[in-house]
């Protein structure tokens, strides 16, 4: 069945030439010279005022990177990247040491305003509580860490978070202020030798967010990082590390945009999540990097390694992603289910238009007993794009009672694009129960039957089940991101293929 007209129009509205965040901020910046060498690694480390152990860590990664080759297994095509033709560090030139919001370059503030990022709330950073009646109940508080090219320019609500014991700061600061935590956890989920891009990131990462939630604390507000690439010829290599200590909870979200440029820019981030006993981390992404123009020129190469480690018993990590941007996406947010009874979730909507190439999915690695995971993926390909779901579900020999449910649907709009599904399902013990579905009609016959019995058509029932499910998760996103996401999920499932 072909896609219905309504769906076609909705996808067209977010086509590549409709990109709304393509403006550029003119601002003085300080850049490292092009190219990559030990000197550059040292330069970045020095800029960040890092202790010696951190520099050593970076150099080891750099030396390792020199011996590695780029992965070629993903279903993406692009000209070879010249890693010596990139600035590995770019930062807005600071006027002076920034201590409050007013001292941040107004151009940067304006940029975030234009992007709709709630930096106005930064006022509250200074402890000025909103007057009674001024507080909009629909608008929840969100602490934002704004990363502009290679540096974090502002982090809001620090004081209030501190009161709760939550540490939320740029990772460059955390390396200086909480070296014991960083040393203990950095690279423990994604080791420096993990893969080509993760190793590169380990050598040259400049900033990113660091979160530590102490035992038993429920983080009082959403934490968020907004990534913006502004400078030309630069790569952004951010590193995020989130640790949820025993019995804690945190919800974190990230957004990303970049100006419209003819060249391709590299974004190679690493995100590490650690959940200890009974902890829960919810990580949401709205990825909207510049996807290139309608001829396929320009756009961001988004080569990202994201992995969560359910290290403790009864822990839970949930990934939610809405992917609409980037010329090329190469991204597999994964969960290592190490603790007994731990749970991993992955919800994804990936929409590709123009000449975009998406190769994304997840890995659920069941190691502990009675671990469970759920994967819901929706891929929509339009224009001349290629959209691939690639996922791995594996149960180790000792992971007795492991359970997985996977449903991945894809939808094609037009005959110039492609949608692909590449799941790997590995069961290594008999008590593992895996279910993988890629047809909409097969999503829980019981539930469908229930709906149909109450007068819904098959199509409505399927829409209700899947949309309702995904919506449930997306509604947890803060308003700023939810608008975009809601628009995307309202896309009809009609005519979808496996």
């Amino acid at each position, binding site marked *: *069945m*072909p*896609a219905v007209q309504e769906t076609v129009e909705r996808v067209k509205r977010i086509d590549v030439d409709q990109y709304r965040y393509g403006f550029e901020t003119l601002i003085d910046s300080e850049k490292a010279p092009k190219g990559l060498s030990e000197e550059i690694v040292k330069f970045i480390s020095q800029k960040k005022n890092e202790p010696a152990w951190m520099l050593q860590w970076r150099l080891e990664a750099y030396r390792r990177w020199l011996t590695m*080759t780029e992965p*070629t*297994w993903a279903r993406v095509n692009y000209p070879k990247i010249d890693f010596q033709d990139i600035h590995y560090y770019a930062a807005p030139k600071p006027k002076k040491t920034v201590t409050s919001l007013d001292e941040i370059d107004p151009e940067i503030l304006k940029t975030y305003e234009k992007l709709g990022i709630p930096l106005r709330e930064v006022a509250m950073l200074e402890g000025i509580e909103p007057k009674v009646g001024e507080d909009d109940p629909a608008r929840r508080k969100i602490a934002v860490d704004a990363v502009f090219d290679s540096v974090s320019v502002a982090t809001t609500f620090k004081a209030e978070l501190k009161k709760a014991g939550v540490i939320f700061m740029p990772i460059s600061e955390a390396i200086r202020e909480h070296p014991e935590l960083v040393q203990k956890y950095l690279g423990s989920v994604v080791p420096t030798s993990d893969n080509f891009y993760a190793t590169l990131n380990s050598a040259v990462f400049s900033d990113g967010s660091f979160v530590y939630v102490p035992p038993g604390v429920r983080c009082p507000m959403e934490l968020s990082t907004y990534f913006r690439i502004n400078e030309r010829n630069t790569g952004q290599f951010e590193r995020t590390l989130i640790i949820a200590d025993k019995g804690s909870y945190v919800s974190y979200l990230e957004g990303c945009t970049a100006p419209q440029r003819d060249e391709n820019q590299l974004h190679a981030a690493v995100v590490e999540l650690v959940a200890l006993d009974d902890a829960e981390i919810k990580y949401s992404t709205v990825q909207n990097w510049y996807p290139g123009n309608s001829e396929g020129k320009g756009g961001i190469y988004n080569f990202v390694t994201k992995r969560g480690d359910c290290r403790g018993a009864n822990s839970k990590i949930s990934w939610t992603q809405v992917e609409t941007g980037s010329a090329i996406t190469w991204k597999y947010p994964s969960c290592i289910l190490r603790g007994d009874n731990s749970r991993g979730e992955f919800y994804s909507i990936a929409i590709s238009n123009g000449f975009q190439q998406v190769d994304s999915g997840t890995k659920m690695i069941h190691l502990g007993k009675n671990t469970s995971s759920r994967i819901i993926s929706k891929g929509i390909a339009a224009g001349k794009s290629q959209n691939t779901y690639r996922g791995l579900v594996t149960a180790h*020999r000792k992971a*007795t009672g492991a359970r997985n449910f996977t449903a991945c649907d*894809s939808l*094609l*709009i*037009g*005959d*110039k*694009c*492609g*949608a*692909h*599904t*590449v*799941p*790997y*399902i*590995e*069961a*290594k*013990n*008999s*008590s*593992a*129960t*895996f*279910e*993988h*579905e*890629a*047809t909409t*009609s*097969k999503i829980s016959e019981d539930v469908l039957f229930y709906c149909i019995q109450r007068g819904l058509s098959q199509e409505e029932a399927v829409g209700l089940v899947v949309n309702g499910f995904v919506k449930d998760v997306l509604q947890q996103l803060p308003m700023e991101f939810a608008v975009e996401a809601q628009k995307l999920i309202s896309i009809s499932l009609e*005519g979808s*293929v*496996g």
Partner: protein
Amino acid sequence: MNVAVAKTGKGRAVSDLFASAEGRLPGSPDVIAVRREAFESYERLGLPHRRIEEWKYTDLRALVGEVLPLAATPDAAALKRAADAVKAHAVDGASKLVLVDGVFAAELSDVKALAAEAGFKTLPEVLDKDAGLLKTTSTDAVIALNAALATDGVVLSIADGAQLSAPIQIIHIATAASASAFTRSQVAVGKGARVTIVETFVAAEAGAYQVNDAVIVSVGDNADVAHIRLMDDAPDAVNVTSQFVTIGANVKFNFFNMTTGAAVSRLQGFIMLAGEGSELSVNGVNLLKKTEHGDTTLVVDHAVPNCVSRETFRAVIDDRAHSVFQGRIIVRPDAQKTDGKMMTRALLLSDEAEADNKPELEIFADDVSCGHGATAGALDDSLLFYLKARGLPEKQAQALLIQAFVGEAIEQIADDTLREHVIGIAERWLERRS
């Protein structure tokens, strides 16, 4: 993936093997040139290993390690043993073509009848005129090795409109130990023809042998073909078979494979729907125990619009066995109105058993309906309990449930006699288990 192939001592042994086998290989100097080219491409690639995506789960370097020397031409004693095996494994009423250790055995085959009915010739007879049969576009190393070393095989050309009521059974029998057999066969089915082909792989008191078989099938418009493959090799054998099928318009093609033996086996099928309005049904069962490794890899390529494909695959895995299913459905940009479904299920009977499933979809057309499903799990405890509560012993209750489980794939075989024959093999496997 660019992985440098390290030349091991074993690799060199294969080079010697080709040099020593060259004199025995049928074909004109032109054919030998094609073979040498194929062998050179094998030498560049070496045995497939896990870094090659298509062989991710079946690492022949680790599982097999080396290619054994070609088996000698069977002597009278071997043929005698083979004759007994033919009797034991023949399908009732079928016309037989027998290959013993990779050499066609005319005295065990129904040559006259099949020459008249199905245009039967042996591979050497065909190669004398044409090297085309050895050429493929594949870049797979085991297929290249097959082209280089194929000693014999059967070639069938079934005339347009021919209606063959009796199945044609091709029986591969191994009688030698520590030797390999390379065979390549072709089946060309004419327009509107109807035929059933059964391939059986068995051993006659042989151990640790290797089979590398290739079958090239082409099906003319409006034909109706059933193709059944029964792989029941000796417990320490290796069997790697590659099948290429090209299907014309309005064809009914029903393929079934069952693996019940061999230490390491792989069936790789490449099926292309090249004519509109055809219906393809591909089904398979893996029954594995001990440390057996069974791999079924199927690529169904919808190159034209309006075709239907159905794949049903079941694996039952006991002890420390390892079952692999890799299925890929490709829908080309023009192949609108394609209806493709694939369902694979694995039943793990032991905590050390392993099932790897990789059901892929590669879709380039927007008006299609494609889907796949995959499950893995143990026998349902409540069903087992139900049967045991009614007095069945554990093993028998399990056997009943396993039979029902694989039955979903076996019942796709339309012919009653053949279906019973296949059920018989499955039952014997279950008996051996208990």
